């Protein structure tokens, strides 16, 4: 059951989830937080993203593989970050640090037309359901400024029926608001800021 009450001093989190689908280019989405605070009964929270296809070589910084997916057989993933721009870039994780996920940025400074290596390692147990998170990096020195990497830890429970899995990719880009009202005091992956 969703918790929709906060005592004085209590905190909670709301998670906005964005399925990029076949979207291309810049996109922005928002959600409203309603409450009993009459002075701010409706607060807008929002995000923006710049969606690219992997075949699009115009994007100046790209990670290969572009998504990180752990399963029982794959607990370590090595990814290469390609700097296709003319400037040296510096990579710095700014949000989405996940419990049990070890991230090693081998070369946080990447020269033009060079590649840096990122190593992801899942060190925890596997959850019952798929765990989906996002790590966002600041890309200093590049016009793109930020890059987000979807991280999936495959769950141990059976996956959706094949009929769902074979559905064609969604043409729209639904934004879902997930109930993520979590217990106060639990250390969550708090964003480190913009």
């Amino acid at each position, binding site marked *: 059951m969703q918790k929709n009450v906060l005592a004085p001093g209590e905190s909670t989190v709301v998670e*906005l989830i964005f399925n990029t689908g076949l979207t291309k280019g810049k996109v922005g989405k928002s959600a409203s937080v309603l409450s009993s605070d009459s002075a701010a009964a409706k607060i807008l929270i929002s995000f923006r993203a710049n969606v690219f296809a992997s075949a699009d070589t115009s994007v100046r910084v790209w990670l290969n593989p572009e998504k990180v997916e752990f399963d029982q057989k794959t607990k370590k993933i090595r990814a290469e970050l390609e700097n296709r721009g003319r400037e040296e870039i510096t990579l710095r994780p700014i949000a989405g640090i996940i419990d049990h996920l070890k991230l090693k940025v081998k070369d946080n400074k990447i020269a033009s037309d060079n590649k840096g290596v990122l190593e992801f390692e899942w060190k925890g147990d596997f959850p019952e359901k798929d765990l989906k998170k996002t790590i*966002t990096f600041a890309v200093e020195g590049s016009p793109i400024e930020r890059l*987000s990497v979807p991280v999936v830890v495959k769950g141990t429970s059976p996956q959706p029926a094949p009929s769902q899995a074979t559905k064609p990719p969604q043409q729209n880009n639904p934004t879902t608001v997930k109930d993520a009202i979590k217990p106060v005091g639990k250390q969550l992956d708090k964003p480190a800021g913009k």
Partner: protein
Amino acid sequence: MNRSTVSLAIGLFTAAIYSSVLGGAVISVPEKEWDFGVVPQQSTVSHEYWIKNIGDDTLRNIIVKPG
């Protein structure tokens, strides 16, 4: 204006001041916007937004609606 009307007006004024000083429940969302930057197609990204009650009364009816 009779005495009871004046008393009522003073009472309402006092209640308004009292309420504004005490504050009641106050919602705080420190980070309202997030920029994912570049993200790949056919993937799912997510971000968490913190909500805090910085007032001195219980914050109720917290509902999140898309759009």
